[in-house]
Structures are given as C-alpha cells and as structure tokens.
C-alpha cells in the first residue's frame, strides 16, 4: 500500500511540475466557458448593413432609423445603385442590403402596400437567416405602430412560454456541453498520453519490473486524473452558477455521482486508447480529433441532434457525451430525479464496462 501511495504521489508530481499540463487542466475549462459565454453567441450585434433608399421620404428614413437604432446593426455606407451590391458583399464587411422601392411612402398611402427588398450575404446561412428575421421584425413592428387602431380583425395571439429557460440564455446549453467535453478530454486524453509516454520513453519497462502489480500501476495512473477531473467539474458548475447564473434545480448529490460515473467512463476510454497505441502523437490524435471534434459537434452541444441526417443521429447515439449532456440538463435545469435519467446512466455505465473489458484483454504486461 505504501508503495502504491508513493506511486500516486509520483504521478501527481508529474502533473503539477508541468505548466503546460496545468494549462490544459485548468486553462481550458475556464477559457471555454468564457468563450462560449461571451464570444460564441447567436446574438447579433454590430452587423454592418448598407441602405439603398430609392425613395428618400419620411417613411423610409424613419424605417432606416428604426433598424439602426435597434442596436443589432450599424450603417456602413449608402448605396447609389443595385449594381454595387455585389461589390460591397465581396469586400466582406456588409452582410445586409436594404432596398426601398421608389415612391415608397406614396405607395404605402395610396395602395396600402409598398415594397422593401432585403438582400443578405448568405455565405453564412445561419447569420443571414437571423439578420433577415430581425430586420423584418423591426419593419413589421413599425408598420403595426403606424396602423395603430386599424389593426387586423380576427387576431390569433400566440402566447409563448419558454419552459426551463425563460430568458433564453445560451449558458443553459454550453455549461453542460463544456462539462461533457472537458471531462472527456482531460480524462481520456491525459491518461492515454501519460501511459503511452511511459511506453514511448521506455520507462514502462521500469514500472513493469517494479514490485507494483499491473493493476496498481494503472490505478495509480488513473487516480490523479479522477481527482483533477472532478475538481474541473466543480469549477465548471461553480462558474456556471456564479458567473452565468446557471441554476442547479435537481439534486447536487446525484449530479456529482453522475459526474463520477462519466469521469470513470472517460478514463476507461483513455486506458483503452493507451493499450492500442504506442506513441504519444497517436494517442493525442485519437483523443483529440476522434473525441474532441465529435464531442463538440455530434453531442448536441452546439447543433441539435434531431436536425442531423439519420445516420449521424445513430452515430451520435454512440457518443457517451451525448447522454451525459442529457443527464446534466435534466438534473440541473429540469430538476428531475434519477427515474428520468436511469436509461442514460445505464448507457454510460455499460460503455465504461465495455472499455475496461477491452483494455484488460489488450493490456500486455510483457514487452514484445
């Protein structure tokens, strides 16, 4: 036992003496949360637009002012003719051109209808869609306000309630997502790289001939990362709670237990990766590119799973972070108990057992 504790201490020393490792352990979670919290948001701001006003009357000026005053847009330049649209889009700054037809106010007065054309640079389809929606919202609002009492007869008023997230905060999505990603990353990447490093440097031989049993070696390698990953989980939840106002509506104990399970699953995956690779670069590649990008994109973290083609939906079912995200969201936001997340928990537990079994089968205590 004493030998074992000594071994665990050695592992901790390896981790703490390294600035780069600490950067990954604690820099990434914090940076990720801040980036997703403040930088990668779907809210529009300071989008540059150009206006081609062929009418230049009170109404068009008023509408232009409303659009600019909304805070989403800033005017870049006024166009003279429709031929310039292509040119300014190619320059790459302006994302929307608003065109008012000639005689706009007059037509609105006489024929009760007038035309606005919105041309969006849709090379970024998602943003273009948002921009057009925002702009048309502003224009419709303005028209409703000048219509005043003369409103629609027979009006169906939809009253919308955003359940679990009244203020539509993006944080409710990215805290679970970041947690799933970071825990996976740290546990799988760090363990696999640290074990493979011993192999690559030849120090694994030294460990194998030591009186420690292979099981103890592996356990000793894994324990520090369990501890550190767990600290990360706490840091992420705390940051989410105090900085971004993400509530914990369900049981904290359950959340912690589920995080432990997930961390163990990720560690067993890391173990498995380390048994099938023999150089650090390979271990890193598998952990980084085979785990990281799919976790980012296929787990439903950024893009909803239901929108994906069917094959990718199946593929995403194979990705444990997907289930972990569901668990965290359910516990933290819906405040439900274990009876609502047992299926997901079972999936993660089975995955873990699978990876451990595979690693035991593949682990060689002798050198070739």
């Amino acid at each position, binding site marked *: 036992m004493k030998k074992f504790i000594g071994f665990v201490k050695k592992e901790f020393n390896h981790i703490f003496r390294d600035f*780069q*490792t600490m*950067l*990954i352990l604690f820099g990434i979670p914090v*940076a*990720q949360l801040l*980036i997703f919290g403040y*930088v*990668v948001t*779907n*809210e529009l*701001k*300071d*989008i540059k637009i150009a206006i081609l006003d062929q009418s230049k009357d009170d109404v068009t000026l008023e509408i232009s002012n409303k659009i600019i005053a909304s805070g989403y847009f800033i005017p870049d330049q006024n166009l003279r003719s429709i031929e310039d649209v*292509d040119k300014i889009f*190619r320059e790459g700054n302006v994302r929307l051109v608003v065109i008012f037809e000639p005689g706009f106010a007059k037509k609105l007065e006489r024929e*009760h*209808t007038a*035309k*606005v*054309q*919105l041309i969006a*640079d*849709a*090379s970024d*389809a*998602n*943003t273009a*869609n948002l921009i*057009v929606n925002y702009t048309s919202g502003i224009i419709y609002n303005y028209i409703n306000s*000048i219509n005043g009492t*003369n409103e629609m007869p*027979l*009006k*169906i*008023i*939809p009253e*919308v*309630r*955003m359940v*679990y*997230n009244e203020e*539509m905060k*993006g944080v409710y*999505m990215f805290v679970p997502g970041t947690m799933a990603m970071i825990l996976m990353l740290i546990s799988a990447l760090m363990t696999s*790289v640290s074990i493979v490093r011993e192999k690559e*440097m030849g120090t694994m031989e030294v460990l194998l001939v030591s009186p420690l049993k292979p099981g103890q070696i592996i356990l000793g390698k894994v324990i520090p990362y369990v501890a550190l990953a767990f600290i990360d989980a706490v840091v992420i939840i705390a940051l989410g709670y105090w900085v971004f106002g993400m509530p914990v509506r369900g049981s904290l104990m359950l959340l912690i237990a589920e995080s432990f399970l997930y961390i163990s699953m990720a560690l067993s995956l890391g173990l498995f990766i380390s048994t099938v690779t023999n150089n650090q*670069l390979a271990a*890193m590649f598998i952990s*980084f*590119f085979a785990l990281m*990008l799919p976790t980012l994109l296929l787990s439903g973290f*950024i*893009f*909803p799973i*239901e*929108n*994906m083609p069917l094959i*990718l939906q199946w593929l995403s079912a194979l990705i444990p972070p997907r289930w972990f995200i569901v668990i965290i969201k359910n516990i933290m*936001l819906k405040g439900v108990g274990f009876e609502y997340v047992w299926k997901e928990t079972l999936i993660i537990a089975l995955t873990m057992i699978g990876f451990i079994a595979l690693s035991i089968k593949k682990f060689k205590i002798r050198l070739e």
Partner: protein
Amino acid sequence: MRTILYIIQKEFIQIFRNKMMLPFIFVYPLVQLIILVNAATLEMKEIDMVVVDMDFSSLSRELTGKFKGSPFFVIESHTTSIKEAEAKLKSGEADIILHIPQNFEKDLFSTGKAEIQLLADAINATAAGITNAYCSYIIADFNKSVISENRNILPLSLPKSVDIEYSYWYNSELNYKIFMLPGILVILVSIIGMFLSSVNIVREKEMGTIEQINVTPIKKYQFIIGKMVPFWLIAMFELGFGLIIGWILYRVPVEGSLITLFSFTAVYLLALMGLGLFVSTISHRQQQVMFINFFFMLTFILMSGIFTPVESMPDWAVKVNVINPFAYFMRVIRMVMLKGSGFQEIAYEFYAMCIYAVVTLSLSVWKYRKTT
C-alpha cells in the same frame, strides 16, 4: 541548397514511416468533411409537438393540421390534459406543446381575438428561438387565411402593409454546409501546419536525436527550412484534397481564383508554422507542445468566427482576433470560395499575414539554439 534537400528527403521518409500519417492525410479529412459538415446544421426538422386541444372545433383542428402539414413539425401525440403534455416535455419526448384553450373558435369570432399557448423546451435557446419563429410564421399564415375566408362578414378596411422580399445571395437555399466546409478546411490545414510541425521538432528533442543534428555542420536556417517544407507541402496538398472532396460531396465550388486562395494559404501556413516553431523552441516534451498547441488552437478556432460572426463578439474578442491567424484564414477562405472575392478584397488580410509570418519566423529562428 543540397543540404536542405537532404533534410527534406529525410523528413519525408520519417513522416511517412509513421503508419498514422497516411490515414491521417487521406482518411481523416474525408471523415471530418462527411460527418462534421453534415452535423453542423441549424435547420430545424422533426420538432416533436404535443397538441392539447380543449376546443374540439373545426378551427382548432385546422390549426393543428397546419402544424402537421409543415415539414418542421411532427405531431407526437394528442391529449386533453395539460399535465400529461408537460410530463412529456419533462421526459424529453416532446419539444413543444401547442395548447388550444376551450372556446378558442367562439372567442375569435365573438371578440375578434383568441389566445393560444405555446410551451417550448428552451434549454437550447437557439433551437427554441428558431422553433418559435416557425410557429409564429405558421400561426400568422393561418390567421391570414382565416381572415380571407371570412372576408364577407368582416368590415372592409385594409391595414397598411409592407411587402418584404428576401433574397439570399451566394447561397440561395441557405445551405449551412456551404458555410461549414471552408471552416473545416481551415481546421484541417491548420492542424498540419501548426500541430504536426511543432510536435515533430520536439519529438527529436525528447528522443535525443536533435543532438545528432546539432553536431553536424547543418546551419540553423537549413534545419528549420528542412523541417518546415515537408509539412508546408503536405498542408497545401491537404487544402487541394479537401477542396476536391468538397466539390465531389457537396458541390461547393471555389467561386474565386484558386491562385488567390493558394497564395494566401501559402503565406498563412508560414505564419502558423512560425508560431508552431516558436512553441517548439520553448518546450522540451511532446506532451507540452501538444497541450500548448491544443489550448491555443481550441481557443482561437472557436474565436475565429467558425460558427458565429466575428463582429457580433464583444470588443475585447474582436481585438484578440487581430492576432488570431485562424480568424484571417477563416474570413479569406469563405470570401474567396463562396463569394469569389479577388486579391484586392483580401489584400489587407494578405499583408497582415505576411507581417505575421515575418515576425513569428524571425522570433523562432532567433529563439532556436543549436546548443543546449
């Protein structure tokens, strides 16, 4: 010159001796482009809806029918208990509840107004926002058709309306794939340029083989050029390979000139490799260099505008992006590929990258020591 060629030859042999390399160069991009480009879409479909119809009128059935007929919604179930519907929302079986209260039809025709409720699971705020937009569109459309069907019993006064015409240039179908493909290409090219090249040097350090090179008459610059050229070539090749795959799989064309795109990439890669070299001069172990690279790549790629527009980011992030090489490449590759921007339009980015390359390369050559 001959020395450099020999080093390059040696590097190529070493790179391709690693069994991981060939799959990495050919299979990995293919997988990324197939999976990630398809995954990254915000077009909603199959939104599961529970209908709580308490009115049982022809109008309420007609409204439900509108949702059923839209390509975005799937009616998961009908119920008359709002409790039951809420339980479905909680368990995740439903994404949204449409609640039509009693007397919906009667209220509409007697008072001219009627309310309905929509309860959306808004944990994913973006998705909920889009769902909401679809719903209001369908309801407004339904409202219009109800009015025109009942024109005879209504007072004749048309409100003013503005007819908004949309056009989406460069991507009229709002195909998100077209936007994601260049973004994924940036990641692929950058991984080779920065990640592989810097790990390669540190590997020599860690294995001790760098000392063998240090005792040879090879000069500093020759060594660095010899180390860089192979990865530079592989990364350029990777861009071409990715473009061909993009064309075959998604028919994403390069609207602008290939020469512009490749010359920008050439300079970009130099800047990035300078950065990678610099990281490798200050690290001693592969693990360190991988972790530093990993940290910066993850942070800077997310900030580069791969998913969301750069100008909507907070001011400090916009400033950070001035020194973020990925942000320049992300912008230029999309401009050239999707909009056909020419050299004039990307001149600023091009010169910025030239300066970047000069600075990072001279920094790392200065930092690199043949002696330890």
